[in-house]
């Protein structure tokens, strides 16, 4: 009943993939987007030490080249009519097996291009930043090769026109993430952090594979056009299953509950990596997946509800964890988790939230990347320390970092007119909208989002004040200094974005209407609370959160060693015991199961079936091997006997 209502009520447009026409003009060169960074990665990895001198610069240039291509394509798209903005770039027949035929091709539509611009622009900035940040690393070339590889894989992910190709990119970014987290793999802890990220991601990937299998079985194809075009004809149960599996996949990549445990450890990688992969781009792939699969989610409110619930849980979870972390990067990671929770929540709200999810994703990409780079800059100046309790009072020493970080801070707080305000408030508003499936949902999600905003304000302000204000608490051997231009310039650019992007993109709904061909146009429903009230409440909560943080960490003395704290604090510090949970409830039972299977395999299969057969064969062989006496002449004799037998047989038969 409710299904019918929603689908009718939302007046959904065709998913863009279904209407895509063959690309012309600049868009036909879309393959260059991927090819350029891929070429860079290949050159740097194959070229080896020969490219040590110019490799990093080349990688950066290629990344910028990719951005230029993306910008040109966007220019071309914006000149077209709204419903013509979906193009396909067929590349080649990839898999042809029986009835299944998968074409490798690119899909260019407003959604993918929004991602392309984000990835290439932020990615290129971070390339530039890394030139400074990694300057003295002996493996600089390898680092840039991986960065390029990541950009290429991420572009494959967002440009793919089928789930299979998307999965290639999905795995590619996983690989790049793994390589980059474990970039300093001479440190065993870092290497195992990389492994952890990889393993946790496998769970999500597995779900994604099963989802693809379901799609293949249901729709007979994996490209978006086929799947989305015929989604309406499938049964709701199937769609729900696919949706939940896609959600699980998204959870793995986007570090959403319950697969969130890897993100904190992923901060082992170099800071530019954290900024690019684990804040701005890769972790948002889950959101992209959900939004891209909206044709499925639109038809299954149950799965959508699950998305929203996951988003809501994660946003609170991340926020709570973020309050207790003293490691600046881990705190930022928790914040990322929480912000992606916002996006997932928005995506789970359905058509009214898709555009806002993507909008928040873009603005978040800017301000969070900016803050990560700021954190990197701080670490750079502080001899790679990450403990905020040993920072403090850096605002005077690192003016640019402080200012750019402040822009990011205000943006994430949602203070008008900074970028976060325009995107996050929209999500909170949308969460309060009753979509006809019970007012309680609107209230629950709305309040969660609202409270989340308050907590966000608290922990981000805590981070900001602990780092830049209060007394200087650093040790004697550190000598805080501002970072070089290659690092500060990207930070400044991102800070400008943090300040202005939200306003620019929402000026007369530019971004929403840009995405409209993909997300569909939705009549605005009224939230259960009126919009000004929500905005006011949010602001009040933010100010309260910020104020508490100021009182505790800006004005008061911050202890250099973390106090023991309450149970809640300790729990939050340990990521709310997620690792312990995983260990006790997932890994141990799994290990016991495997042990049991091993015993069964050894005793029953190997011992009984295989062993019995082999023992029998060995018995036969014991007899037969006597024929093999090692004398060539005996073998020759046997051969001759065979020839005589054959000749004799021939004559006898004829």
């Amino acid at each position, binding site marked *: 009943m409710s299904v019918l209502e929603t689908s009718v009520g939302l007046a959904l447009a065709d998913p863009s993939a279904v209407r895509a026409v063959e690309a012309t003009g600049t868009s036909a060169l879309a393959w260059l987007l991927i090819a350029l960074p891929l070429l860079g990665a290949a050159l740097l990895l194959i070229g080896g030490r020969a490219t040590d001198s110019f490799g990093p610069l080349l990688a950066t240039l290629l990344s910028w080249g990719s951005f230029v291509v993306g910008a040109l394509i966007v220019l071309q798209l914006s000149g077209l009519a709204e419903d013509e903005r979906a193009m396909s770039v067929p590349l080649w027949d990839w898999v042809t097996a029986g009835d299944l035929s998968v074409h490798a091709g690119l899909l260019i539509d407003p959604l993918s291009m929004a991602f392309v611009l984000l990835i290439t622009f932020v990615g290129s900035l971070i390339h530039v930043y890394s030139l400074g940040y990694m300057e003295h690393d002996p493996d600089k070339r390898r680092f840039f090769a991986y960065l390029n590889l990541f950009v290429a894989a991420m572009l494959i992910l967002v440009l793919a026109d089928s789930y299979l190709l998307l999965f290639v990119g999905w795995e590619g970014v996983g690989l790049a993430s793994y390589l980059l987290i474990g970039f300093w793999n001479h440190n065993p802890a870092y290497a195992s952090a990389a492994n952890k990220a990889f393993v946790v991601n496998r769970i999500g990937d597995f779900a994604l594979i099963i989802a693809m299998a379901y799609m293949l079985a249901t729709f007979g194809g994996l490209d978006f056009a086929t799947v989305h075009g015929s989604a309406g004809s499938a049964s709701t149960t199937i769609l729900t299953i696919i949706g939940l599996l896609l959600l699980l996949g998204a959870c793995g990549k986007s570090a959403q509950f319950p697969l969130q445990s890897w993100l904190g450890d992923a901060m082992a990688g170099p800071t530019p990596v954290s900024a690019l992969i684990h804040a701005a781009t890769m972790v948002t792939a889950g959101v992209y997946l959900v939004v891209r699969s909206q044709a499925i989610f639109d038809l299954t409110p149950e799965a959508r509800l699950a998305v929203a619930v996951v988003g809501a849980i994660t946003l609170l979870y991340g926020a709570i964890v973020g309050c207790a972390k003293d490691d600046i990067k881990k705190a930022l990671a928790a914040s990322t988790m929480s912000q992606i929770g916002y996006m997932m929540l928005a995506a789970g709200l359905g058509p009214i939230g898709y555009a806002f999810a993507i909008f928040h994703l873009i603005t978040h990409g800017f301000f969070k990347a900016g803050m990560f780079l700021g954190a990197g800059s701080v670490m750079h100046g502080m001899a790679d320390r990450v403990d905020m309790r040993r920072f403090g009072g850096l605002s005077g020493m690192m003016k640019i970092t402080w200012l750019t970080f402040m822009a990011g801070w205000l943006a994430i707080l949602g203070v008008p007119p900074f970028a976060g305000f325009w995107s996050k408030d929209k999500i909170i508003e949308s969460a309060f909208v009753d979509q006809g499936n019970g007012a309680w949902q609107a209230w629950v999600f709305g309040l969660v989002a609202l409270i989340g905003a308050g907590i966000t304000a608290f922990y981000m302000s805590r981070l900001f004040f602990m780092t830049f204000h209060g007394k200087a608490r650093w040790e004697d051997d550190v000598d805080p200094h501002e970072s070089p231009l290659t690092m500060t310039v990207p930070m400044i650019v991102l800070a400008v974005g943090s300040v202005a992007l939200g306003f620019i993109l929402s000026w007369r709904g530019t971004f929403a209407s840009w995405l409209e061909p993909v997300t569909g146009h939705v009549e605005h429903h009224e939230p259960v609370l009126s919009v000004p009230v929500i905005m006011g409440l949010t602001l009040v909560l933010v100010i309260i959160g910020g104020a508490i943080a100021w009182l505790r960490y800006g004005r008061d003395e911050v202890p250099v060693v973390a106090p023991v704290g309450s149970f809640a604090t300790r729990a939050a510090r340990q990521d709310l015991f997620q690792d312990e949970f995983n260990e006790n409830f997932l890994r141990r039972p799994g290990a016991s199961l495997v042990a049991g299977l091993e015993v069964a395999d050894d005793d029953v299969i190997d011992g009984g079936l295989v062993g019995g057969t082999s023992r029998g064969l060995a018995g036969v062989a014991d007899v037969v091997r006597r024929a093999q*006496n090692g*004398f060539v*002449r*005996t073998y020759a*004799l046997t051969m*001759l*006997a065979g*020839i*005589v037998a054959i*000749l*004799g047989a*021939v*004559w006898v038969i004829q």
Partner: protein
Amino acid sequence: MSGGEALLFWVLGPTCVLGALGLLFARKAVHAAMAMALVMVGLGIFYIAQYAEFVGIIQIFVYSGAVMMLFLFVIMTVGTESSISPIETISGQRAWGWILVLLFGGVAMYGVARVTFPEPVGLGGAQAEGTVTALAREIFSRQVISFEVLGSLLVIAVMGAMVLAHRERLVPRATQRVLAADRVRRNTFVAGKPAPGVYARHNASDVPALLPDGTPADVSVPRTLVARGQTVPVPYRGVDPAGTPPDAEAADTAPPSTRRGDQA
């Protein structure tokens, strides 16, 4: 088959069979190899008689001239004295071998006898241009790929044989220059060892040479003879050195200056 060819067949055929039997029964490997060479030359003549002049000459040239020569070479290197006892070690091998080969021969001959061969066409038509030209046309047109493949096979075989037979030297081979320098440095035999029979009263290698002062140069006797005890003691100024056979080994190693001093 003309009368001449029949005559050739009845002379050469039994010769070939005898040669083959020689291979079977010869005690010494060299005799076996010679018997085999005989068979091959015989077969080569058969080929020529059968209008395959080129193949026949190549058979003699390559098989008898090169392949069997290689066999001989290996036989001589490996050692001609066969240490293999004539007693058969594998029980039943000899009996079964004979039985099966006779059976095989019987079956094969029976088969040949049963088959009706067509009336021989002869090679007049196929070799109208001449035997070599016709064969060349055949090889370099229809069989050209097999020919090229065979060429590469040969190259590979040569490489393989070289790898198999190659033994890595542990130290570089001493060149003549090095040896000469070494002689000068050690101050032994700077002008080379004395040849046997120089200033000697006997012209035989088992008699040591006499040095200009009349003393016998023991080192001039080949070491092999010394090892076999086949040297002839030379009386020197009435003193018969019999009983103390010249010890070439010691002479080789001992510095000559001390020896000269001893004698003086």
